[in-house]
């Protein structure tokens, strides 16, 4: 007898529906799996057979053939156990094949029949709704995640027995998951804890307002990391769509937080400097999202940037331009979103105190070698560069608190709304994403600003790329000032943040 059920395979960020077909016929007892299953998926037969036997269901001693269609996609992951079990049960007549019509299943079986959670449930459920499935059956562990998709019934099951019960009578399922409306504001550390550092605060606010990348340079202990960690707290809140998009990414990466799967706060990823290039970009034969994708719509913070391997850093160049990464593997090419703010922190020299010559004892060669670990093309992509000086005792002990994150965020929100309105017809939403033609269109300079820019261009000899970067930052500063035109003051300020130039360092 033949039966089939729907499940899904995840390739990169794409979800492909896969039909699991089972046939039980006369012949020598065997269990064959065809249709390009990976080793993990092939193991499903042992898990399924044992789990069924341990639940008192004995498969008839017949020839069982399972096929995964379409056969051209490699099937990977443990989520195929449940659909294999369901289709085999239906094909051997234990449940009716009709109950599997219009159902999408995914889940991992344990030998005693328990069903474990798998990754990628949210994008699967979204696909199930698009395909018009009656309902989606997922491990109980993933129920909240699946239930995020509006207009789709999702059933969570704990055991093989429950699976059979609810497959036969889906109406009996009562979801007992409580959906507390999210009230807990993500508790990012607050900017009010930072004393002094007015210059760095301002630079960070500009960076966040226009979605610009930022580099913080300063001696050890000056607060670079502290400042960077507070960046997500001043970013505008995620919209529901953005949150869902992020939840999808984290679902595929298998990194959703327990209990509250919908991601509501902007990610802050801070990979250690031993991070490999593949961990940053995403890797594997069937690539998983890397750090840059996990930092999508949030912050990728590289602390001690010169300590990262050159290869890791250079991989960032293309995603920083394109806001996504395209990985090509034997199995095809995979696109992952990677629209993040790059925040980097570094010491100015190996000992960390340059240019304070009373404390720095590095040689000129050491300093330039240290700075040289970061390539100029990468530095060129960082729009804002600011120095974070060491804090003095009097600053540290001043009683007044710094400005709070909430107040900064409300200003950021204003600047963001101005940008959203301006770029309504374009496919961008921030000044940091402006491209060549758009820069000319949206960055009109006042005559005075024009003069200043031409003087600066001659005097500081910067490249065409840094010229455009300065215009974008000036655009953001003007927006924060609620000015439609870019004035001389805005240009002048943007010039002080221009990207780091090694030439003028040592």
């Amino acid at each position, binding site marked *: 007898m033949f039966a089939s059920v729907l499940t899904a395979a995840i390739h990169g960020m794409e979800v492909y529906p896969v039909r699991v077909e089972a046939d039980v016929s006369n012949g020598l007892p065997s269990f064959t799996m065809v249709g390009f299953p990976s080793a993990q998926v092939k193991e499903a037969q042992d898990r399924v057979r044992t789990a069924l036997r341990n639940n008192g269901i004995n498969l008839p001693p017949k020839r069982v053939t399972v096929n995964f269609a379409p056969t051209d996609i490699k099937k990977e992951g443990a989520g195929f156990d449940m659909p294999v079990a369901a289709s085999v049960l239906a094909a051997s007549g234990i449940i009716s094949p009709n109950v599997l019509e219009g159902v999408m299943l995914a889940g991992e079986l344990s030998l005693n029949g328990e069903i474990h959670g798998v990754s990628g449930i949210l994008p699967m459920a979204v696909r199930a709704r698009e395909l018009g499935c009656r309902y989606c059956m997922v491990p109980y562990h993933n129920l909240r995640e699946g239930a995020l998709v509006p207009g789709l019934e999702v059933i969570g099951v704990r055991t093989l027995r429950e699976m059979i019960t609810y497959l036969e009578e889906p109406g009996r399922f009562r979801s007992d998951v409580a959906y507390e409306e999210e009230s807990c504001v993500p508790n990012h550390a607050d900017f009010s804890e930072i004393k002094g550092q*007015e210059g760095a605060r301002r630079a960070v606010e500009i960076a966040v307002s226009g979605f610009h990348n930022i580099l913080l340079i300063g001696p050890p202990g000056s607060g670079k990391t502290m400042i960077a960690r507070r960046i997500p707290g001043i970013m505008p809140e995620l919209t529901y769509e953005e949150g869902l998009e992020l939840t999808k990414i984290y679902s595929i990466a298998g990194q959703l937080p327990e209990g509250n799967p919908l991601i509501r706060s902007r990610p802050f990823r801070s990979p250690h400097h031993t991070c490999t290039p593949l961990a940053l970009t995403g890797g594997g034969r069937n690539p998983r999202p890397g750090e840059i994708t996990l930092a999508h719509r949030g912050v990728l913070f590289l602390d001690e940037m010169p300590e990262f391997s050159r290869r890791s850093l250079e991989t960032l160049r293309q995603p920083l331009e394109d806001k996504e990464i395209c990985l090509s593997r034997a199995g095809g090419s995979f696109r992952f979103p990677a629209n993040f703010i790059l925040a980097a922190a570094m010491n*100015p020299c190996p000992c960390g105190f340059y*240019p304070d*010559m*009373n404390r720095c004892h*590095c*040689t*000129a060669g050491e300093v330039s070698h240290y700075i040289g670990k970061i390539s100029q093309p990468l530095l060129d992509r960082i729009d804002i560069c600011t*120095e974070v000086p060491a804090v003095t005792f009097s600053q540290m002990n001043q009683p007044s608190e710094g400005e709070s994150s909430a107040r900064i965020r409300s200003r950021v929100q204003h600047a963001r709304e101005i940008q959203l309105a301006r770029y309504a017809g374009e496919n961008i939403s921030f000044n940091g994403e402006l491209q060549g033609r758009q820069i000319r269109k949206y960055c009109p300079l006042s005559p005075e600003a024009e003069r200043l820019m031409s003087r600066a261009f001659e005097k500081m000899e910067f490249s065409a790329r840094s010229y455009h970067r300065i215009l974008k930052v000036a655009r953001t500063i003007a927006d924060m000032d609620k000015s439609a035109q870019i004035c001389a003051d805005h240009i002048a300020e943007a010039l002080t943040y221009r990207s780091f130039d090694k030439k*003028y360092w040592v």
Partner: protein
Amino acid sequence: MEETHDSIIHCIDRNSREFPEKLKNIPNSPKCIYYTGRLPEDRSPTIAIVGARMCSTYGRIQAFEFAQFLSRSGVQVISGLARGIDSEAHKGALEGDTPTFAVLGSGVDVCYPAGSRSLYQRILKNAGGIISEYPPGTQALPMFFPARNRIISGLADVVLVVEARERSGSLITANYALEQGKSVYALPGAVNDALSQGCHRLIYDGAGIAYCPEILLGEWGISKKNNKKTQEKNKIRLASDMKLVYSCLDLRPKNLDEIIRKTGFTPGKTSSLLMELKLLGLAAEVGRQNYVAINEYD
């Protein structure tokens, strides 16, 4: 590579007529020297400006200004093409009217450090010369540098040490100069500045205090033709806000935050005023967002 006039390497030995007179009389005089471009004029006044590679902005600016002033007054500036003070001295001299000369610790065709290549070219283009006692092709080795210093001081009448830590290669040059009977001057700095300790030590030991470039001219009895510096004083009217920001600046680098606190302006306003000052040539940015005053205005 095609041999141009500039890249011809000459070798002259001590007995040659061309051999610099000043170098013949020093202890341990080199047997022969190689040079490309020209040799310093024997009869022209010559000064060696030396100092730390890792120098402060103060030292950098002073080295440049001293060299520029002296070069305009007809003094040949000699240094070692190293990073920091040496490079600034060459750069300053290139802005003057008199050729400048570099003495290397490697073959004259080996530009060390490689980052000074453009400076190397500019020196040759401006009728200056590159000098070394090592045959062409010799790579720079640490042990060559102290020996090279005796040639730097030997070619000069006066040695000016701009910035030096207490144990610095520049002090070796100063010692050679004393051995060779040349005058030594040192640039004073702040008492608590590690980079000025070597200079202060020299002053204590009897070196001249180079508190302004004019006093160095006295060594050759040159009187100041016309003080270009006063001529150059900027006749700029500054707005009061900008005056306030400018008044916060001095020769030590000030961070943006310090200036913000002193003026009470917003970060945005402060940085745009600083950028204006920079473009007017009154301030310079050293490192990122650290500023110094570099010129006076009227």
